[in-house]
């Protein structure tokens, strides 16, 4: 059932997308995209760099934090850490940008990178932590009784079994990251936000679309790639669609 409905949805989505693209083209909304592809590509490159750097940092940091606060000696830190990290997400991204800007007092790539990392951190930390805690206690008991060390239990039992939850967190986080990276332009961080905001300011919808369309495609691509990766990395024994 899964496979067939998935494929059907994909075809339906593609059909709608083609229809919308055609409508946009007919309405002259693709003008900038078609006349200035070089500029769009340059900004897309900046966007991708922002996403990759802040995403990589957030994944590394988030996994580390999530694992750390799930260990028995540090578990009492779990609540404050998660509460602290969720500030990064509950504060509107724009306000966070302003805050970071006020703190580091420079503009450009660095404050944007910092703000994006913070925005992306929460779902990863939370899902890693909850995923690890959600692993069946009987499994860990069996592993301990068979002579696994604490480290072996983490790497061979806990992480592989929490991987589904962790991946869900990373996917959510990175999709949010792609969208939020459009705001980086506001503090000189570049990216596709440049086109979006310029388009709004100059009432040039074709410029706006030239920024928004690649952003949407990038978000979908990131989600799809991570979905593929998940199928490779997460064991068939625990996948929902296995």
């Amino acid at each position, binding site marked *: 059932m899964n496979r067939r409905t998935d494929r059907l949805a994909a075809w339906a989505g593609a059909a709608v997308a083609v229809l919308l693209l055609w409508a946009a083209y007919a309405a002259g909304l693709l003008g900038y995209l078609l006349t200035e592809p070089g500029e769009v590509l340059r900004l897309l490159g900046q966007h991708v760099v922002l996403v990759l750097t802040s995403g990589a940092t957030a994944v590394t940091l988030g996994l580390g934090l999530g694992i750390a606060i799930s260990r028995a000696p540090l578990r009492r830190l779990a609540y404050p850490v998660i509460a602290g990290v969720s500030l990064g997400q509950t504060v509107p991204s724009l306000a966070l940008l302003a805050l970071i800007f006020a703190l580091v007092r420079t503009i450009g790539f660095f404050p944007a990178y910092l703000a994006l990392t913070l925005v992306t951190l929460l779902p990863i930390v939370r899902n890693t932590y909850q995923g690890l805690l959600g692993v069946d206690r009987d*499994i860990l008991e069996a592993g301990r009784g068979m002579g696994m060390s604490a480290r072996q239990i983490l790497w061979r039992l806990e992480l592989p079994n929490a991987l589904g939850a962790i991946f869900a967190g990373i996917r959510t986080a990175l999709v949010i990251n792609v969208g939020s990276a459009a705001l980086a332009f506001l503090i000189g961080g570049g990216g596709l936000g440049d086109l979006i905001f310029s388009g709004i300011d100059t009432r040039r919808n074709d410029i706006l679309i030239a920024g928004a369309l690649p952003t949407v495609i990038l978000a979908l691509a990131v989600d799809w790639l991570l979905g593929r990766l998940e199928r490779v990395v997460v*064991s068939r024994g625990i996948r929902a669609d296995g």
Partner: protein
Amino acid sequence: MIELSEVHKTYPGGAEAVRGVSLTVPQGALCVLIGPSGCGKTTLLRLINKLLPLSGGAIRVAGRDIAGEDAVSLRRRIGYAIQQVGLFPHMTVGENIAVVPALEGWERRRIQERVAELMSLTGLPPGYAARYPRELSGGEAQRVGVARALAADPPVMLMDEPFGALDPVTRERLQDEFLAIQGRLHKTVLVVSHDMDEALRMGDRIAIMRDGRLEQEGTPAEILLHPATPFVREFLGVERAFAQLARLPVTMALDAKWAAAAEPAGLSFAGNTPVKEALLAMAAGNVRAARVTGEGERSGGVVTLRSIAALLGSGRKGPPERPAAAAGEKSAGAESE
């Protein structure tokens, strides 16, 4: 061999789970540790592989005091199976069985051979190696659990209600299969159970616990015939009556009041006939007494409904104990004259 001497366990907070248990499981014997829930039997098991720290006393496994041993290396030498099975869901059946050999750093080829060997030993089709635990039935999962516990050929095995979560038919079959495996491998096994039937079926020895203390330890026949305390008698309960009927030979139910001269005509049983079969035949023939022939006149006599009832009613009023007929073949129960 597992030796416990004066073992105590007090949990943080003061609850005394085990209060001075001394127990020896001889080399190659299967001992069933049994008692009502909360009696401390699982705690005792977990003390042996250092899943819980000892509060007092000493435990020796294969001659070595566990106090001085590294917990991880100790556990690698002890097979461990639990009721919830605890198969690792992200690993295939083959990978699950291979866990301890892999931890021990065996070569890949040796691991593969061992996995295949264990799968055939536990009655798992070879094709199952690539399956995942969620694709198994309860009985199959339990077989994998047993295979996994046996993987590195540990001399000692600890099993916590290994067949607990199964339907009665599957449970009996797995019990029998495990006994067959045990008959070949002669591991030193301690099984925790709450099921008296399982204890009588599987145990070379049975240890009965209550409130953290050992009430009685002995062979199944010793415990059936001579319950040491009222608690043991009560715990054996109805089970005891049925187990006696099924396991004790009819020579143990002879009626002392009948002289051999006054033998009733009609039914006659071989001396090693289980009491159960004698009783069924007597009920079918509607007789109250039957002759028992022994090897040599001494063990022969007369069995009556009253003497069977006396055997069931009390462990002490029965006739003097004789060695439980050692596994004689089940010859035809009743023979008409």
